[in-house]
C-alpha cells in the first residue's frame, strides 16, 4: 500500500485538530491545498501567522484587539455606564451588527459548565467584578446564551453583581421578529408568554 508522505500527513493531522473537522474533511482540505497555486497557499499561511501575531484579547473586556485594548474600549463615543456581558467575541459582533447598543462589553470567554470543569475561575469573572468596582457602570446587561449553561452563568453573575449597587438586566426571551406564531416552538412560546409586556 502506498504511504502518505510525512509532510502531507502532518498537514492532515494539523487540520484534523480543528473543531468540526474530522479525518475525512482534513484529507479533502489537504488535497485541495495540494492542487491550489503556491501563492494562494502562501497567502493563507501568512494570514494565519499574521492573525496570531497581531490579534490578542483586550486587556479590559477580552474582546479581540489589535492593541492592548480593543477599538470599542478605546472609542470615545461609547456609553460607559452600560456594560453588556457575553460569552464569546462572536456575540459582540452579533450585537454590534444590530446598531442598537452603544455601551461597552465584557467577554467571559465561555459559560459555567461543571461537566467540562469550567467554573467562575476559568472565566473572566474576577476581571468583570474588578472592572465594575473601578468603572462608572450603572447597568449590567447579562447577554449570555439562553441555554442552560448561559442561564446558570447569568444567575451566578446577577448574584455577584447584586452587591455592587448597580442595575442588572437580562436580555428578553421571546418570539423571533417576522416569525409566525404557529411555527414557534413550544418552549419559546411559553417563555414569550411569561415575559409578556403591557401594551404601550
Amino acid at each position, binding site marked *: 500500500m502506498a504511504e502518505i508522505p510525512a509532510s502531507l500527513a502532518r498537514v492532515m493531522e494539523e487540520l484534523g485538530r480543528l473543531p468540526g473537522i474530522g479525518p475525512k474533511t482534513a484529507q479533502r482540505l489537504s488535497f485541495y491545498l495540494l492542487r491550489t497555486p503556491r501563492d494562494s497557499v502562501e497567502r493563507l499561511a501568512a494570514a494565519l501567522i499574521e492573525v496570531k501575531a497581531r490579534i490578542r484579547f483586550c486587556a479590559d473586556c477580552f474582546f479581540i484587539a489589535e492593541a492592548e485594548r480593543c477599538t470599542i474600549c478605546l472609542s470615545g463615543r461609547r456609553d460607559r455606564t452600560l456594560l453588556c456581558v457575553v460569552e464569546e467575541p462572536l456575540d459582540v459582533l452579533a450585537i454590534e451588527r444590530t446598531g442598537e447598543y452603544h455601551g461597552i462589553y465584557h467577554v467571559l470567554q465561555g459559560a459555567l459548565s*461543571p461537566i467540562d470543569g469550567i*467554573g467562575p475561575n476559568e472565566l473572566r469573572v474576577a476581571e468583570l467584578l474588578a472592572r465594575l468596582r473601578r468603572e462608572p457602570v450603572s447597568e449590567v446587561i447579562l447577554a449570555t446564551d439562553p441555554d442552560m449553561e448561559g442561564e*446558570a452563568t447569568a444567575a451566578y453573575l446577577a448574584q455577584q453583581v447584586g452587591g455592587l449597587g448597580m442595575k442588572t438586566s437580562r436580555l428578553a426571551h421571546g418570539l423571533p421578529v417576522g416569525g409566525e406564531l404557529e411555527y414557534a416552538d*413550544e*418552549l419559546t412560546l411559553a417563555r414569550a408568554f411569561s415575559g409578556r409586556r403591557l401594551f404601550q
Partner: protein
Amino acid sequence: MFLSNVSLFDFRNYAELELPLERSTTVLFGGNAQGKTNLLEAVALSALTRSPRTQQNAELVRFGQQAARVTATVQSQDGLEQVETRILMPPEASSGRVLRQFRHNGRDCGPAGVQGCLRVVLFWPDDLQLVKGPAEGRRRLLTMLLSQLDRVHARWISQYQHLLDQRNALLRAVRDGRQNAGQLDYWTGGLARVGAQIMVDRQRRVLELQPLAAAFHRELSDDRERLELRYRPSGARIGEAPVELVAQQLEAAMAAHREEEIARGQTAVGPQRDDLEVWLDERDARQFASQGQQRSAVLSLKLAELHYLAEATGEQPVLLLDDVMSELDPSRRERLLAALEPGPQALITAADLKDLPPSVLEHAAVFRVERGTVHA
C-alpha cells in the same frame, strides 16, 4: 395511525430490511436472538427518539459498522409522514460521542421534529416486573407516555437530564475541592424549575390515567379488586400546587440534603427519584401482590395507556406486543386481544405460532424472523 413501512439499515442484527406492513395485525415469529425484539425496538425508537431498551446508543449499530438507520413510514390523520433516525458512531480513534440525527419527511430536524409523528404502546416481558420491580420501570412508563403526548414535556425531560448531569458534576467537583459550593445554587434553581414542570405534568396525567386503569382492573378481577395509582414525587408535595410552589419545595429539599449530596456527588431529590405506586384494595401492591394480581395490574396499566393515548390524541397508537402472550393465562390473553378489536395496528412477536390463539392468526400477516431477515 398505522405504520405502513419499516426500513432498517445496519440496525442491531439487521444489515438491511424493507418491511411493508398492513393496517391489520402483523405477527413476527422465530427463535430467540433472531431479531424479533430488535424490530419492535426500532419502531419504538422511531416513536420515542430513544431506545426503551438501552441508554448505550452504540449497541444499536450493527457490530463493526459506522451508522445505523431506521425509517418508519406512518399513515395518520396528518397524512403520510416519514420519521428517520440515524445513530452515528464517532470516528475511530476519536473520543467523540455517539450521535443521534433525525429527519422528518426527508428534512433534518431535532428530536422535537419527529416526536409525536408515531405513537406506540409497548408491552414486553420486562413489564411483568412493573409492579414489584424498581421504580425506574414505572418512571419510564410515565416518560414514554407523556413524551409522546407532549413535545414540551419531552424537552423538559431532556433539559432536566442535562441540568442533572451538570449539577452532579459540580457536586463531585465540590466534594473533591475543585470548585466552590457557592455555585450550586445557580444549578439548583434551574434544575428545580424544570423538575417542577415534569412533576406537575406527571401528577396531572396520573390523575387522568387512574380511572382508566382502575376500570380495566375491576373488569379483570371480576369486580373484586380496586386498583389505584399513587404518584409519589420526590422532594415535593404536589396536590393542587402551582409550578412555582413545587419548584420552591424542590429547591428547599435540595438545600436540606446538601451535605449528603456533596458527599455522594449526586442529586438526592427530584423527578429522577419519583415513583408511581400501584395500590390494590388500599394496600401497596409491591408488598403483597401475587403473580396473578401483578399481571392483572400490569395489563390494566397497559390497556389504560392504550386508551389514554387514543382518547387524548383522537387516534389509535400502534401496539407493540413483544412475546407477552405466552406469559398470560387464557382469560387475561382474551382481554388483551379484545383490545385489538376496535382497531389499533398491532405488531406481535412470539417464539412459536402455538403461543398465539387462532383468532389472531386468522387475520394477521405472518412473518418468520431468522438471523436478521424477515420472510413470509
